[in-house]
């Protein structure tokens, strides 16, 4: 558990981060979202003390981040940034091995860990281990950057706009991969982005920052349904709000008994996609299947009910 306790950062008397407090649960993804200059990156960098807070405290599993040296703290916290920051003169394997090497792991243990991570990120170890960053594509570089941040099994992974440099298709895949890997490893992740769509997609909880203040902290559904301020309402996007909300839920949660005509949809399809199929094919209900067996149906009425602000 990460506890951020009334943390502030002043630059020349002006607060870049203003008394922010929040608690992050273990094994969840928390996304900090805001416009540029909102203080989101400063907040993230205060957690591994790349920026020293003017006041307030951060505790990881109950221990203050000031109870250990900066370098020891950072070696325990993974750090992945926009533009990956891989060392151009190190091979992929050496890049991933940086923190384990700093921690003094044995070379067999490091080699095993490098291969394990490369496989986890769908990069064939024999093929990619000895390559240099200049020989990888943007998506591959980003994956190696995240693998490097996870190498020493850190208590916490900090990510600053990790997908900022990727094109939309690769970006979507990277988000899916991150979710999968986070669930496999049970990692605790704090991620900064300016993209509300990404925040909704990835976050178990979303923290919205505006002018150095934390204006709302909650689940994506809470933030869409009850935006705390006008700023948050703007961030989640006026007319698109209902569709964004629908994209958060799979149809499996809204299955009812009964039959429906036509082609069926998978249980993990989002309500947003189901709505789109209903409109496209002119149907009022869709059959829902899971692993090839029929679960029931989802109706346009049920979707409409979920989309309305309760």
């Amino acid at each position, binding site marked *: 558990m990460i506890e951020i306790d009334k943390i502030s950062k002043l630059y020349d008397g002006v607060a870049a981060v203003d008394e922010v407090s929040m608690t992050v649960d273990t094994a969840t993804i928390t996304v900090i979202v805001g416009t540029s200059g909102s203080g989101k990156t400063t907040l993230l960098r205060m957690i591994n003390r790349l920026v020293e807070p003017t006041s307030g405290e951060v505790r990881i599993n109950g221990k203050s981040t000031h109870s250990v040296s*900066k370098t020891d703290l950072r070696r325990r916290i993974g750090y992945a940034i926009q533009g990956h*920051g891989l060392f151009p003169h190190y091979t992929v394997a050496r890049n991933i091995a940086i923190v384990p090497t700093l921690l003094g792991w044995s070379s067999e243990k490091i080699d095993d860990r490098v291969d394990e991570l490369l496989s986890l990120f769908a990069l064939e170890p024999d093929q990619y281990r000895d390559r*240099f960053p200049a020989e990888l594509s943007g998506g591959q570089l980003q994956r190696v950057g995240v693998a490097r941040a996870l190498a020493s099994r850190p208590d916490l992974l900090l990510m600053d706009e990790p997908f900022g440099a990727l094109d939309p298709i690769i970006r979507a895949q990277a988000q899916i991969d991150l979710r999968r890997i986070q669930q496999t490893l049970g990692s605790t992740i704090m991620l900064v982005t300016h993209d509300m769509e990404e925040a909704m997609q990835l976050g178990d909880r979303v923290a919205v920052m505006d002018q150095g203040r934390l204006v709302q902290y909650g689940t994506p559904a809470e933030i869409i349904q009850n935006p705390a301020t006008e700023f948050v309402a703007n961030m989640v996007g006026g007319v698109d709000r209902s569709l964004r909300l629908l994209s958060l839920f799979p149809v499996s949660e809204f299955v009812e008994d009964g039959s429906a005509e036509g082609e069926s949809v998978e249980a993990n399809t989002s309500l947003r996609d189901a709505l789109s199929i209903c409109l496209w094919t002119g149907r009022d209900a869709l059959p829902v299947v899971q692993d090839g067996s029929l679960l029931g149906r989802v109706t346009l009425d049920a979707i409409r009910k979920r989309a309305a602000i309760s």
Partner: protein
Amino acid sequence: MIPARAGTFGLSAPGVLLALFGFASLLAPFMTLAANRIVEGKGLTAWQLAGPEVIYPGLLSIIIGLILGLFSSWPRVRLAGAVLGLAGLFWLLSQSAPQLLQGAGEYARVSPGLGFWCLLAVLILLMADALTQLSPRPMTRLGLLLTIVTVLFILLGSGALSDLSIMKEYASRQGAFYNAALRHLGLAFGSLAAATVIGIPLGILCYHHAGLRRIALPILSFLQTIPSLAMFGIMIPLLGWIASTVPAAKAIGIAGVGFAPAFLALLLYSLLPVVANMVSGLQSAPESVRDAARGMGMTLMQRLFRVELPLGLPVILAGLRIALVQNIGLAVIAGLIGGGGFGTFVFQGLNQTATDLILLGALPTVALALTAAIVMDVLVEVTQPSQSAQHTQGMPRKPS
């Protein structure tokens, strides 16, 4: 298929220019014959030098060499042309000198004339242009340099050129020449070493402290703008005063004139390139790389030795290259204040209006500076951090 190899006879623009200039140079006096080492000599064009058995092969090689340099599609042929031309040039020089001296008197001197120097420059430029086209790998370049230096030493050692005036000046000063060479190298490399020892830590400090950087770099730039003669003018009273007030300083050889002020002046001049390139070398690591290194918990020293220095090494070495080449040239001025080095001959020659003595000091300096520049360029290239897996494809691995 590369069109250039398809047999088109494209003309090389620099080749044409060099050939025109080369042919014009053939009309200028190739050598001068003087009654003694001081008086002005009489110019002789290439065809007035000696008998046809000497002139024809020499002139033919030069002309063919210049013509071969015209074909832009064949860099190897152009290189061969330059080598052939140079061979002809030195053939004429070595073969005609003894013939010219015959019956010209005991004190007569022959020396290369305007035409020779122009042709030498033209053919060396042709060679450099052809080599640029071929863009040889660093180790090949080093090998070429070694070959050229060896050939030069064989040529000088063989006695084929010993009838030339400049070689006669050398013969009468052999001992002094080697002392001057050692002193020159000592001044140039010694002051570079001292500048490195001071400049590298200073550069690292400047990199970390913007305040220090804002003070140190302008001061070093200012030092660089002081003309070298003025610098010695400042050194002489300053070091003279130190020597007269601190006995220990005098004991280790500090004095107003001689080695000490020359060494100190060269040291001050070389600090700017060393420190400035140190700072920009360390800054050359991408911002995201430096941020990641910090964020992963690398200490200041780990970041310096594992990230900033390896990535900045080419820029840092380029600074040392500038300082070294600059020092080799500037060390000539040391001759003026009794600092020794090749400058001694240059200033003696100026006083005696003996051009060949000036050349005895100037030519080795130029050769030394060129050699140092080429060796350092190769070093800079070799230290480019390896950023590709060429070695996995069975190609030689660059040191990382």
